[in-house]
């Protein structure tokens, strides 16, 4: 065994050098690529927004400069010289523009988006912190990025997360002479570590491999996979476009990956609409490009409590999709486990914070409705305000907020609030893709238009209402690109549930008026005499013929149906087996037998008999 593990120092050094070389190239490619990909995407968006160079006037250019947080947006003509990968890698702060040509016939013009050094330094700071926090060099190696000159660490290996917040605290000692491209050793976190050091965008970066690292080609694979994950993470094909043949293959690979991810994501959303006498619900999601982070869900917590929610994960691409699936699962589990909706959201937030290497976050609006009362316990964690559409047409946005977005602050608390729905009221949930859809003049669809559409279509069923909104948004966009996922959900409350109530009666004539009274108390007189007649017929049959000791009556009422269930412990007897009497017989031959059950058949929607556990069970629906 010892022989197997005994690698000569020379070999280890060579492999360590190679590994660190790779890691540094990855680091620079990724950091530059991330900034570039974001800039590229902005340039791309602008050519889609403007459509032609003529539409890009001064005002809209300065508008986009501001909203994209870039330092310049220009329209130029001619040919752009592409930077080579090596130029890009080494350019660091100098590489700061992105260009995108307009589509034909305007393809002699392009949009150029650029960042100043100052803005760029900020972008790099964000990226270095985000991407290299838990980036592996080999299997055990890591990056340390420190702001200079403060030496404050902005990325830190996971297993040493809480050991130090500064470079000096890791055990790092400034080398006597600048190491240049040479590998040198340091005692970091109490372990001998091979390091390479370089300065990058105002940061001191150390690529580190601890001596204990087991060197294999897997290291290289891990590094390469790191790049691939990044490409997806950035979510923009622009980056891959530029890096020649190999990238094209990668792009094809990821096109398939995206397709797969989209399928997984779509299949994660509930497809079957709930069937209920008390509410109707419809929801749908349209992905803008590739895979988005929107999701929705609805499920029963009990016979009378339903949860429904709409959420939006920051970002696009496979990372957003995977995080969306995680968030959806955690949220559902929490809602099923916790009785209190705010506790469920707080628990979800904690779990999302604990495992959030990519710093994703989620906004969510979740409601749990009690179908018996119409009361909804709600939590709004940074999500768009839903619209409450009353039966009389009054429409308002529910702006109450409960707390911050999820995945951000582990100890965040969420303050729940209540809404009360009556029969005929609707609640419309959506994601920002609806209100933030722009038209070709860069005007947003907005809440006012949404409210107007909802008011005019308030009488429609939920699925139609959703479609009316989607069509209105799409008509509004009128050819402008669809920027974000669009998710809509309509919850229509029809009528409260009346829980089934049961009572047991002794098998004797005196019980029949008691059962009639019980029915009247439960259903109310307004329900019509049919139900009372049916009760009289069935109960009197049981009392006269069953020879049992009790009968039990269960009553369940919804807004458009009633159900009576009779159970008795008498002799097995199916009243439906009684032949219908001859209702045209002369008076003297008329029999009463069978008349009652015939009336029951006529007065009800359905009637079923079964024998269960020694009981006759007669189920009657009106």
């Amino acid at each position, binding site marked *: 065994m010892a022989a197997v593990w005994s690698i000569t120092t020379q070999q280890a050094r060579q492999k360590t050098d190679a590994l660190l070389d790779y890691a540094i190239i990855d680091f620079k490619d990724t950091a530059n690529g991330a900034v570039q990909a974001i800039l590229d995407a902005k340039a791309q968006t602008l050519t889609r927004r403007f459509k032609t160079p003529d539409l890009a006037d001064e005002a809209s250019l300065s508008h986009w400069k501001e909203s994209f947080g870039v330092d310049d947006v220009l329209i130029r003509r001619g040919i752009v010289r592409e930077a080579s990968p090596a130029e890009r890698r080494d350019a660091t702060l100098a590489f700061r523009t992105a260009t995108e040509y307009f589509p034909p016939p305007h393809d002699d013009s392009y949009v150029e988006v650029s960042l100043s050094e100052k803005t760029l330094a900020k972008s790099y700071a964000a990226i270095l912190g985000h991407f290299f926090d838990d980036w592996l060099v080999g299997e055990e190696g890591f990056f340390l990025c420190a702001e200079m000159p403060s030496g404050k660490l902005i990325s830190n290996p996971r297993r040493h997360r809480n050991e130090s917040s500064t470079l000096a605290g890791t055990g790092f000692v400034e080398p006597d002479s600048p190491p240049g491209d040479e590998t040198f050793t340091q005692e970091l976190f109490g372990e001998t570590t091979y390091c390479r050091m370089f300065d990058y965008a105002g940061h001191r970066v150390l690529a580190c491999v601890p001596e204990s690292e087991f060197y294999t080609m897997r290291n290289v694979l891990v590094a390469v996979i790191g790049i691939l994950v990044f490409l997806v993470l950035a979510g923009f094909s622009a980056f891959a476009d530029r890096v020649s043949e190999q990238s094209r293959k990668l792009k094809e690979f990821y096109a398939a990956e995206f397709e797969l991810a989209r399928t997984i994501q779509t299949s994660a959303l509930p497809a079957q609409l709930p069937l209920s006498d008390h509410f109707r619900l419809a929801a749908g999601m349209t992905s803008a490009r590739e895979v988005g982070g929107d999701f929705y869900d609805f499920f029963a917590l009990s016979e009378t409590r339903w949860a429904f929610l709409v959420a939006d994960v920051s970002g696009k691409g496979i990372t957003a999709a995977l995080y969306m699936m995680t968030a959806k699962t955690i949220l559902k589990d929490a809602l099923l486990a916790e009785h209190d909706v705010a506790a469920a959201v707080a628990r979800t937030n904690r779990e999302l914070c604990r495992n959030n290497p990519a710093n994703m976050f989620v906004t969510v609006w979740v409601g749990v409705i009690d179908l018996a009362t119409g009361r909804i316990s709600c939590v709004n964690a940074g999500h768009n305000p839903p619209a409450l559409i009353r039966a009389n047409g009054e429409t308002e946005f529910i702006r109450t907020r409960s707390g911050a977005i999820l995945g951000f602050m582990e100890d965040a608390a969420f303050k729940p609030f209540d809404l009360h729905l009556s029969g005929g009221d609707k609640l419309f949930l959506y994601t920002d893709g609806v209100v933030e859809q722009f038209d070709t003049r860069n005007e947003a669809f907005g809440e006012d238009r949404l409210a107007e559409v909802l008011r005019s279509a308030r009488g429609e069923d939920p699925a139609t209402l959703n479609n009316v909104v989607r069509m209105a948004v799409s008509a509004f966009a009128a050819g402008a690109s669809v920027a974000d996922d669009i998710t809509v959900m309509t919850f229509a409350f029809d009528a409260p549930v009346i829980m089934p109530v049961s009572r047991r009666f002794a098998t004797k*004539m005196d019980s*029949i*008026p008691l059962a*009639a009274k019980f029915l009247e108390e439960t259903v109310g007189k307004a329900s*019509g*005499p*049919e139900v*009372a*007649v049916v009760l*009289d*017929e069935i*109960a*009197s049959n049981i009392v006269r013929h069953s020879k049992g000791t009790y009968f039990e009556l269960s009553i369940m009422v919804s807004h458009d149906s009633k159900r009576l269930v009779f159970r008795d412990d008498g002799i097995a007897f199916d009243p439906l087996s009684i032949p219908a009497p001859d*209702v*045209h*017989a002369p*008076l*003297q031959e*008329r029999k*009463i037998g069978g*008349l*009652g059950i*015939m*009336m029951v058949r*006529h007065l009800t929607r359905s009637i079923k008999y079964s024998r269960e556990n020694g009981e006759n069970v007669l189920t009657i629906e009106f």
Partner: protein
Amino acid sequence: MQIDKSLADGRLTLKISGRLDTTTAPDLDAEIPKDGISAILFDFSALEYISSAGLRVLLTAQKQMAACGGEMKISGVNAMVKGILDMTGCSDIFSIV
């Protein structure tokens, strides 16, 4: 159920309010003398509904009248009661006015 009863010259008038069902039908039956009656008029204008137990009383009374050559009439029938009389074929037998 409430029964308003009047008897004059062998003509019995019964105004029934409320429900004529298993519980109340025996009370109605008890109000109808088994002889000495030549005509029965049921006033159903305040009757909410009738079950088969009520029909039994009506059929028995009809048979009684048929046997003695008397007559029986039913007035003020609401839609629910009419529906049941029609459904059970009783409309063909009873004289509904």
